[in-house]
């Protein structure tokens, strides 16, 4: 609980410390998209921009569930996201999307509120861009009359999960950006052996190869004595290519995470890269002026 308070007061302090973007030259586009692969990036949408997003995670490329039988996972979908983000101001973005989900709770409706507190200055000002995100996911699965299952949902509140992330990123050059992402996920209902709260730390980078093509990678380590390889859990790791054609960012990636919502993939990633249990995924993001 102390850590939550610390995070809360850190954010309050930084809100108070936030700069006026009109008075400084700021670094533009630390990342090209508001997401890296699995994690959110420090980027928020410009004001009055609508971002329609479609993301997909196929089945295992190799391993027992992959290979030719599933056409290398392309005949399966572990998760699908469709939704939209909207920039209320240049620093404040709201989002709503629906994911199929692949953890114990599925059919998720996810909302998020993202605020850029600090922007990296070009020559002076903040050395980093700092953004916070608060998100919630509600499972709209049918209630099952079996108390042993999470989907029994004894209370409506048990359908809810929350996630909080702090993205701290720096664009070191036109070609290289790095981000670290401390985060916290809270699930209202878990099995007796599990824990409701889960802290994590993510690292992401973007390496811009050409004007339109970039390589992106992110990895998020959950801090939990339960989520070890001995218990069958794996660290979510994604590697991808990002193609920016102007107003249209297309991303194709490989990741062992089976789901797309943070409250879903962070506690539930069990697929192992070493066993070929990684999948192809893509995201299409299309911006509209409103």
């Amino acid at each position: 609980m102390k850590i939550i308070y610390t995070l809360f007061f850190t954010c309050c302090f930084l809100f108070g410390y936030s700069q006026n973007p009109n008075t400084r030259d700021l670094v533009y586009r630390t990342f090209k998209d508001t997401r890296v692969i699995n994690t959110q990036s420090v980027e928020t949408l410009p004001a009055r921009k609508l971002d329609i997003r479609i993301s997909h995670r196929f089945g295992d490329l190799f391993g027992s569930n992959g290979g030719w039988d599933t056409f290398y996972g392309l005949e399966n979908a572990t998760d699908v996201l469709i939704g939209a983000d909207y920039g209320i101001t240049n620093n404040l973005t709201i989002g709503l999307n629906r994911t199929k989900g692949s953890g114990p709770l599925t059919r998720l409706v996810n909302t998020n509120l993202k605020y850029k507190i600090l922007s990296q200055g070009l020559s002076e000002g903040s050395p980093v861009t700092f953004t916070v995100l608060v998100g919630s996911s509600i499972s709209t699965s049918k209630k099952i009359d079996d108390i042993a299952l999470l989907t029994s949902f004894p209370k409506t509140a048990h359908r809810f999960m929350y996630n909080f992330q702090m993205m701290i990123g720096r664009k070191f050059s036109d070609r290289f950006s790095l981000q670290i992402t401390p985060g916290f996920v809270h699930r209202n209902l878990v099995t007796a052996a599990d824990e409701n709260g889960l802290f994590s730390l993510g690292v992401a980078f973007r390496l811009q190869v050409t004007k339109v093509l970039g390589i992106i990678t992110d990895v998020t380590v959950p801090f939990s004595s339960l989520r070890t390889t001995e218990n069958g859990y794996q660290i979510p790791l994604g590697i991808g290519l990002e193609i920016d054609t102007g107003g249209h960012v297309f991303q194709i990636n490989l990741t062992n995470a089976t789901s797309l919502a943070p409250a879903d993939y962070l506690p539930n990633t069990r697929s192992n890269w070493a066993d070929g249990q990684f999948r192809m995924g893509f995201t299409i993001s299309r911006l509209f002026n409103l």
Partner: protein
Amino acid sequence: MKKIIPVLLLFPILTLLSLTDVFNNNSKSIAGQQPVREVLTALGDPLPDHYISDLPVKASVEIGEKIVFVGTTEAVSLQSPHFVCTSCHNTEKEFADLRDTAPEKRLAYAVKNDLPFLPASPLYGVVNRTTWYNGDYEKKYGELVVPARNDLREAIQLCAVECSQGRRLKNWELESVLGYLWTLELKMEDLALPASDYPKFENPNKENAAALIADLKSYYPQGSPAHFVTPPEDRREGYGLTGNAENGAELFNQSCLHCHENQRYSFFELDNSTMTKKFLKKHFPKYSRYSIYQVSRYGAPSHPGKRAYMPQFTSEKMSDQQVEDLRAYLEK
């Protein structure tokens, strides 16, 4: 007593001044700050239809200025979600001598005065013109240019709907914009006319008034010629001109980056990085939408769902030589 003496001295001084022309509004002497329109009216030139003496209720110059720069007022939604007037138009004078409107002169003036180098004519002095949407704009907008060619209000509405892909302005918004544009009318000092020549316009008579009006109007353009031109037939060969990389750098900074830097008005981001230059250099001779030959001469189209587009540069706004200058800069 010491305080009263200056007041007593001030009274006779003011009286003397009032007998001179200093405070006399009916003076016929022309000053550099005097609007050209005022001088023309005094010479007997009729007021244009778009002249406004009083703005209607709700309208104001301040609202007009906000629409031009920001695209909205507190009362209504954005006129266009894609552009504002200043995306394509400067609000300042663009030439030292308004009679010499060569694009090379425009670039030199833009660099000297740190102005963007834009595809459209400046709003400064637009109320002094008598025609708009000249030349080849008929090829682009068809019959829509007919009412706009001789009517500034219609020209503004055409710009609002077609050029900026937005909605028509409400009447009070239109009058506000017009009110603001009248604050950008040409002044005598904007003309390449020596102040020593002003007196000839001060005391006209019936015989010479028409000639004086024509003479004064010859110092600034009454319209804005526009010719659409094509990319070179062989894009690898280009226009067959030797580019100047230094001029190209100025064009890139004053023109391309005005819209594309930080995706200000475009979804396609450009900057001064090596990656960007390599990309543009690679596509320059190609038949693609990333070729500067292509977009400078044909523009980029507007699609349903992606209405923001790029207007082309007419030969009056960017010469073939300048396109080659850009190429030379990117290939340097």
